[in-house]
């Protein structure tokens, strides 16, 4: 009995190893992104994100000699904030540090009754402070604030605003979230692009899907076969004429232009899905509705729309993720005038202006909403995917 269980476990071991290894490969990069986005800037550039899991040696000598008064995060004494780079810059090496520790503060010895650190220990403390690891003790949301505001100052937005050293275009109030460089503004733009660009195709596809599934007209089959072919036409094939046309009529850089483009482009797949789903509805339902004297419009509003909710949900998630995550269309039609999140991030990556901490925070911000939508409605997403061809 027991031996059987052990045997079974041993047989299954390779399976478990492979699966868990794959899971690790799949999840660890994202975990790294999340942790990095929460670390202080100084720490991000100096040590890998995985070091947050290492046992905190808290700088050894720092914990012994300084933490008692200055605190583990170096901020306990406001008049001697050890996270202030300017202050730290005055004591780059053990020599300057020890000289300062020997001086009196307000007539009292700096170290009180405690012994002075040795030269080696002082050097360690200086290095510890210099690399800003005293701040590495805790995780912070500062990067998210910087990313939301699109802040490019000497220190973080919070620190600069507290010290009053922010650039002139930063007001240090809620208005900053609308800074065109920031992810806050981009988030709003992304929403403004995505919601109508999700709603319109579903509406149009519901109309057309109803016609293809339950109405009789000449060329029904041929038209639908054509539609199936159109599903895989690459975006690139249509960009140039549309952007030339938009430039002529002034639709470049407008939301309307992007909504219409996404609607047109999402149509073949949306209609395909809708028609296949609506076709599975029971026929008697429609027959009895018509016998009762319902018009097409009534049947559509009161039968089709409520019954098609699962398909609408599938389609909604697909279209939402597609538009939200799209870079090419927003790059071409919106660009920097109304930046969406993907554009903003790709800009940060290619311009190399931002450090990893802001970039990772920005990337995570852009992933937040799709992740929530995705995991809460995964069932519908999978169903839509399995329903046939998939758009890419």
């Amino acid at each position: 009995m027991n031996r059987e269980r052990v045997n079974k476990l041993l047989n299954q071991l390779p399976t478990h190893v492979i699966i868990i290894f794959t899971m690790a490969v799949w999840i660890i990069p994202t975990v790294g992104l999340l942790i990095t986005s929460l670390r202080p800037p100084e720490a991000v550039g100096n040590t890998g994100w995985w070091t947050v899991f290492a046992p905190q040696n808290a700088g050894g000598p720092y914990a012994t000699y300084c933490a008692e008064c200055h605190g583990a995060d170096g901020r306990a004494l406001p008049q001697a904030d050890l996270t202030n780079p300017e202050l730290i810059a005055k004591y780059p090496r053990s020599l300057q540090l020890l000289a300062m520790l020997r001086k009196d503060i307000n007539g009292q010895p700096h170290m009180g009754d405690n012994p002075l650190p040795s030269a080696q220990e002082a050097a360690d403390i200086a290095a510890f402070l210099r690399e800003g690891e005293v701040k590495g003790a805790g995780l912070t949301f500062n990067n998210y604030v910087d990313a939301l505001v699109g802040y490019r100052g000497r220190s973080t937005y919070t620190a600069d605003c507290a010290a009053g050293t922010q650039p002139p275009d930063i007001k240090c109030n809620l208005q900053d979230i609308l800074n065109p460089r920031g992810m806050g503004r981009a988030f709003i733009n992304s929403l403004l692009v995505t919601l109508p660009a999700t709603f319109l195709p579903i509406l149009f596809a519901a109309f057309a899907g109803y016609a293809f599934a339950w109405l009789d007209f000449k060329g029904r089959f041929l038209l639908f076969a054509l539609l199936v072919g159109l599903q895989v036409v690459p975006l690139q094939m249509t960009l140039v004429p549309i952007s030339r046309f938009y430039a002529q009529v002034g639709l470049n850089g407008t939301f309307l232009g992007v909504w219409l483009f996404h609607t047109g482009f999402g149509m073949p797949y949306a209609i395909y899905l809708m028609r296949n789903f609506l076709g599975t509805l029971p026929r008697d339902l429609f027959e009895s509705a018509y016998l009762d004297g319902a018009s097409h419009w009534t049947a559509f509003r009161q039968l089709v729309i409520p019954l098609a909710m699962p398909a609408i949900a599938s389609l909604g998630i697909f279209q939402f993720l597609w538009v939200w995550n799209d870079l090419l269309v927003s790059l071409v039609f919106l660009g920097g005038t109304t930046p969406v999140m993907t554009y903003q991030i790709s800009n940060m990556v290619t311009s190399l202006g931002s450090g990893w901490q802001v970039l990772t925070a920005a990337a995570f911000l852009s992933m937040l909403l799709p992740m929530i939508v995705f995991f809460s409605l995964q069932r519908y997403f999978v169903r839509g995917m399995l329903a046939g061809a998939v758009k890419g």
Partner: protein
Amino acid sequence: MATPQDISKTVTPAAVRKRPVKTSAPVPEIMKQGGLVPWLYLLPALIVMAFFIVYPMINTIGLSFSNKDGTASAATTCREGNPCWGVFENYRYALTAEFNTSSPQALWSSFWSSSYGNTIKWIVVMVFGTVSVGLGFAVLADRVKYEALAKAILFMPMAISFVGAGVIWKFVYDYGTQQTQVGLLNAIITSLGGKPVAWLSTIPINTYAIILVGIWIWSGFCMTILAAALKSVPDEILEAARVDGATEWTVFWRIMVPIILPTITVVVTTMVINVLKLFDLVYVMTGGNFQTDVIANRMYTEMYKNFNVGRGTAIAVVLVVAIIPFIYYNVRRFLEQEATR
């Protein structure tokens, strides 16, 4: 006693046919009213599709025979002393400009560093990678208790944009010139005593490094579709084969794979189309530099960085020509499905 092969032979034809979904039965007689009504329902969709897909496609083909800004024939861009294909000049550029024809060896090596060679690498490695990871994981995850969690994790990247995935992996591939490596991959290598690698600028590793990100994104998609297909394989057949002494390996290759082969084909074609269109990853991770360019990114570069309408559209047409076999396949599959309904 039936061997697994026999089972798969007898089972395949019936199981291959997708279980027909009951749909679009003949329209009920009573609903055949008003010749115009259907068109009213179709109108909004037909208008946007005509304007945003059909018209631009035709226009793109026209523009591909024009010059830099679409004002004159492409033939006018020919320069004396240089090879010229007349009105097909943009196609000469699209198809030959990346190749060095001075010697067969040079042609061979320039082909594999061109956007065409890279696109082929993408198709082969990415399709093979996503399908094998997806299929393997679908089969294995079926046997463990944490199946749902495992599948959700593999599937998660589908929710992430290519741009977000690009950032995630750019960070994994980060190459520090100083002693400490903040990129995970180089940190692992240095801790094992190796030398750090500049993954995204070292030719030819960089193309494969980006393809790996593609595999990371799309494997979950393949897994989900293949897992659904595997669920439809009748348990009795698998049990019968196991009772007859077939190993799990044989069951997989001789029964499961043949039965779900049609689904695998669908997944492969979908993936090839996805790869051909793929632009964002290359754009974000290397911008097509260091010989990582692909057709879709080259089209963007010609059109929106070099502002050359003729060349950009010609590359787009080349791209669509590469996709035409799949359009044909898609339509044919649709017709077959309809016939079995």
